[in-house]
């Protein structure tokens, strides 16, 4: 709003009054109250802090973060970065943070897709589809998550042992040691192809934008998919061919106690991911359903009257309006999924809580350990919140 349209009452400055050193003066009262409140809160914090430090000393409980540089000596089953038990506690904690992120990020993406699909399914006119979706939502939402995680973990453990592993497809093994799949031996050419693919996506997006701008100008729709295929698929394949087309597959094979080679997904990770995704999807489905139902029926009818097909109707008219309702509760669900991943300790997935707990147990520094856990979750949660708030502001109704 510009100054010209602003309410004139707010533009006028209040007349200056001399400050009287008296309780009757509103400003003096305000200052006194504020000093009092800040002082009380400050002294409570100081009192808690000094007593904590004093009592830790009296009980000879070690304090400080010096333990972070000590050798951890704890085994970690899966890690995104290289880790040995001889590494420091700090590195062990970083592994824990990455493990938490690994399950949270993948979980959020999968839960969003599954939840949206179920939410739309529940609105389906097909009786069977909508009832199955409703049944799913009610069952999943009403059972405690921990119970579900233990359920999935028990199922994972019920798979046959590695020597009797199921082999649904050549080279893919299902056993109680996890899922083993063949892995590509990674070469620089693959990295280059990946970069080319990302570049292709960006170029496609730019092309689509300019095509839309031109359509705005002359009304002619332009085909985007030929360019998309060429850029997103053709470019990486070409890059890979130019760099010698390396293609060597590492097949998992049973050697000794266990499988060697290939890529693996541990039963703990799989159980946690499946549990979190199915659980959170139940909530997301309801959020999506509420969002879609919030769009006025008149909007649907108007879109149909314009001759839009069902897909276009959802994509162009309903979803953009529904998203405004969906995003804020969706943020809460993403935060819940991330925080719920701390239940991993129950089924032996070593996330930040598990590793920080072991650390605080071995070093005995509970306050520092808990502080680290809180800091990590706070950072992750605030990042999610910030991103979602930015996205929310971006898609918010622009009043013209």
């Amino acid at each position, binding site marked *: 709003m510009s100054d010209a349209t602003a309410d004139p009452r707010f533009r006028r400055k209040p007349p200056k009054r001399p400050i009287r050193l008296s309780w009757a003066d509103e400003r003096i009262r305000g200052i006194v109250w504020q000093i009092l409140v800040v002082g009380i809160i400050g002294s409570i914090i100081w009192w808690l802090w000094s007593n*904590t430090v004093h009592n830790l000393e009296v009980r000879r409980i070690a304090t400080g973060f010096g333990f972070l540089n000590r050798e951890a000596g*704890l*085994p970690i089953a899966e890690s995104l970065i290289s880790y040995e038990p001889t590494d420091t506690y700090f590195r062990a904690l970083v592994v824990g943070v990455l493990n938490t992120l690994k399950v949270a990020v993948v979980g959020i993406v999968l839960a969003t897709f599954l939840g949206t699909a179920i939410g739309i399914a529940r609105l389906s006119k097909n009786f069977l589809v909508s009832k199955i979706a409703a049944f799913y939502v009610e069952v999943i939402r009403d059972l405690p998550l921990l119970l579900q995680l233990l359920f999935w973990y028990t199922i994972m453990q019920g798979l046959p042992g590695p020597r009797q592993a199921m082999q649904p497809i050549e080279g893919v093994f299902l056993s109680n040691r996890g899922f083993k799949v063949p892995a590509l031996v990674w070469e620089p050419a693959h990295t280059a192809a990946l970069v080319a693919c990302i570049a292709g996506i960006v170029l496609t997006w730019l092309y689509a934008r300019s095509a839309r701008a031109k359509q705005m100008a002359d009304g002619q729709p332009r085909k985007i998919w030929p360019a998309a295929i060429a850029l997103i698929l053709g470019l990486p394949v070409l890059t890979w061919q130019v760099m010698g087309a390396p293609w060597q597959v590492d097949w998992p094979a049973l050697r*000794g106690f266990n499988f060697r080679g290939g890529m693996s997904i541990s039963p703990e990770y799989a159980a946690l991911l499946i549990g979190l995704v199915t659980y959170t999807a139940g909530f997301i489905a309801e959020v999506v359903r509420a969002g879609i139902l919030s769009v006025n029926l008149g909007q649907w009818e108007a879109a149909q009257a314009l001759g839009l097909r069902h897909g276009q109707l959802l994509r162009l008219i309903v979803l953009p309006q529904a998203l405004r309702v969906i995003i804020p509760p969706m943020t809460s669900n993403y935060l819940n999924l991330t925080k719920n991943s*701390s239940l991993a300790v129950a089924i032996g997935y070593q996330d930040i809580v*598990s590793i920080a707990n072991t650390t605080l147990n071995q070093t005995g520094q509970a306050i520092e350990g808990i502080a680290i856990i809180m800091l990590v979750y706070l950072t992750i949660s605030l990042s999610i919140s910030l991103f979602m708030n930015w996205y929310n502001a971006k898609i918010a109704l622009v009043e013209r």
Partner: protein
Amino acid sequence: MHQISRPGFLRAIGAAMIAAAVAMPAAAQQPAAGGSSPTMDAIRARGTLICGVNTGLAGFAQPDSQGVWRGFDVDYCRAVAIALFNDPDKVRYVPTTAQNRFTALQSGEVDMLARNTTWTLSRDTSLGFDFPAITFYDGQGFMVKASLGVRSASELNGATICVQPGTTTEQNLTDWARANRIQFQPVVIERLEEVVNAYLAGRCDAYTTDVSGLAATRSVQPRPAEHVILPDVISKEPLGPAVRHGDQRFADLVRWIHFGLVTAEELGLTSQNIGQAAGDARPDVQRLIGRTGDLGRMLGVDNAFMVNIVTRLGNYGQMFERSLTPIGIQRGPNALWPAAGGLQYAPPFR
């Protein structure tokens, strides 16, 4: 049926309790310099001893079919209750996991831990604990399924091994693997039931913990012969009760209850014959049963405390036979020194 617990939540409460406990007014927390013991005073005022025990380990601490806690560790809780109240039932048992036991003791949630806890230097110093006595000499071993055909731990290269977190077990395992150049895949699960389930379900090739714990776990399986405890012992695990550092009087009491039990076995006093010990002329016996020496009073309890304890619980050997012999644990290093060549030995009870 799984017992549902919320480990994260419980620990959060535990941590909050630590914060609350350490933030209490400093004066109330000062350990007494001379006569009184804040822990003993608190127990007496409350009327019950709060004892942190295992969540359920056959032979050491497990509720029986009536829900009464039984076992070797539990007997130490009962012994302390007898010393303080002359009543073995004035104990509230708090089941603690390997991970939350220290928080429970530090925060004052429990008065003492009687929960096969290994005495180490860092626990004795930086955790703020005291370990009054070693009640059970143990060592870490491995259990595998007999069908696996493994005869020694050195054959475990490449194996998946189940282990509980937050214990010395975890560190011993990595030390041993490094020293012997053995690669292994860990599966780290906090709750005892869950980690044993994972082993039984075949998620792991081997399960590692103290040999006594392995024996206890094996004894409760439907077919114990299907599991083999490997002969290798990879660590020293002196187990005993733990109390908070700073209350020496309470630590003294727990320490001398254990030594009293060992002394009773040395002197041949059992739950059956200690009633007639008044007629025994040996000065050692007269001191133990509190007729001379005023020793109980020095510890802040009744002079006849050892008579009361041994009458109800038996001596060290009887406690061992009642709880641990049935699950297949031999006296071994826990036999008396020098009589039976073991390590259990009490300083003079005088």
